[in-house]
């Protein structure tokens, strides 16, 4: 996955992502594609969750999956999560859960609960950084005020790092793939450098849905695992999602 939050010159925040899923889950030799990724695309839906006929939050999701990977509380915050691989992974959390140690939260239920119940950027940030979890993860969170965006790097037990937007230091966007931002990505899976190169080339003056979509359409940020691209602008309560394809030549991940 690739997620980013960027702030334009007027202080407006944009949050976008490519959702990549299905690595090693069956390669279709005939069509040069991942089988599960192909089957996931028709299941992508945008959902408006309502209570008393009023929107509580918006989400791009997969039918049958009750947790959330991409969502927005209009006017309040935006949230995406990226997978964080670790030996101390979710399978250990599941094992602990089965054995009765149930103090951790399931990742996608936590994000759903945050989207449903948190009422501010700060509250969402606290919940995502402090709740014990069954699996490690990256949470990419955007607010509705200038400077409100961060990447929260989580292990199962604790928050390892919070990487924040810092306009004064010239950090007008944060971009996260599936590696700790202070370490080099795996050399055969470097989507971070091409993504950052395109963001830098775009410049803060020109950031918009259109230019962010361009960044997320550039290979290998766009790859054979990309199921959808979602674009969010919290101040406009605007969420757009598009199904993606990556015709050859295209890296499988």
């Amino acid at each position, binding site marked *: 996955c690739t997620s980013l939050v960027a702030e334009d010159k007027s202080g407006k925040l944009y949050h976008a992502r490519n959702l990549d899923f299905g690595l090693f*889950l069956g390669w279709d030799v005939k069509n040069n594609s991942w089988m599960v990724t192909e089957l996931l695309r028709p299941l992508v839906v945008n959902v408006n969750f309502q209570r008393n006929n009023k929107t509580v939050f918006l989400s791009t999701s997969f039918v049958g999956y009750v947790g959330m990977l991409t969502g927005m509380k209009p006017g309040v915050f935006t949230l995406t999560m990226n997978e964080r*691989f670790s030996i101390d992974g*979710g399978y250990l*959390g599941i094992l602990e859960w089965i054995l009765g140690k149930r103090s951790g939260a399931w990742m996608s239920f936590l994000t759903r609960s945050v989207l449903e119940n948190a009422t501010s950027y700060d509250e969402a940030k606290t919940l995502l950084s402090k709740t014990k979890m069954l*699996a490690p993860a990256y949470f990419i969170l955007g607010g509705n005020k200038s400077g409100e965006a961060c990447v929260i790097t989580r292990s199962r037990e604790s928050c390892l790092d919070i990487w924040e937007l810092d306009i004064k230091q010239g950090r007008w966007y944060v971009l996260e793939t599936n590696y700790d931002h202070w370490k080099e990505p795996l050399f055969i899976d470097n989507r971070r450098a091409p993504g950052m190169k395109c963001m830098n080339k775009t410049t803060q003056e020109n950031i918009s849905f259109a230019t962010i979509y361009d960044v997320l359409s550039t290979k290998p940020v766009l790859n054979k695992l990309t199921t*959808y691209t979602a674009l969010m602008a919290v101040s406009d309560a605007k969420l757009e999602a598009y199904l993606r394809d990556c015709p050859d030549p295209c890296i499988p991940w």
Partner: protein
Amino acid sequence: RAQDVPPYTEDCRSGTYPPSGQTFRGTVPWYKVNLDQAPHERWQQLISDKKIQLTALIQSIKNLAKSIFPSGKLIEIVDNDLPLLIGTLPAQYGEEMKGIADASGLPLGEVILFNIFYEVFTV
């Protein structure tokens, strides 16, 4: 051309929005989910519209599992043992999963597996 060599790194794209062309597969439909409804009922409309696609995905995952464990033991565990977890999951999500299983006709264990895929695959 350099971009044709793995990892197929392109020059930064421009002019791709509004989406069209070969990298665009289609728009994403909108649905409403009413949180005032009982959790069991919330996903009925969506599941009824996408039952065939959901079943195809789950079947494909089962086929993959069968190719790794041809005895079918893994699927047996998913179908018979995973539903035992349902009572331990946060209440509304457990009920929603039961509703999805009932509406789609899929075994509850397979719906649970789909919902905990993230935890399973983070290694």
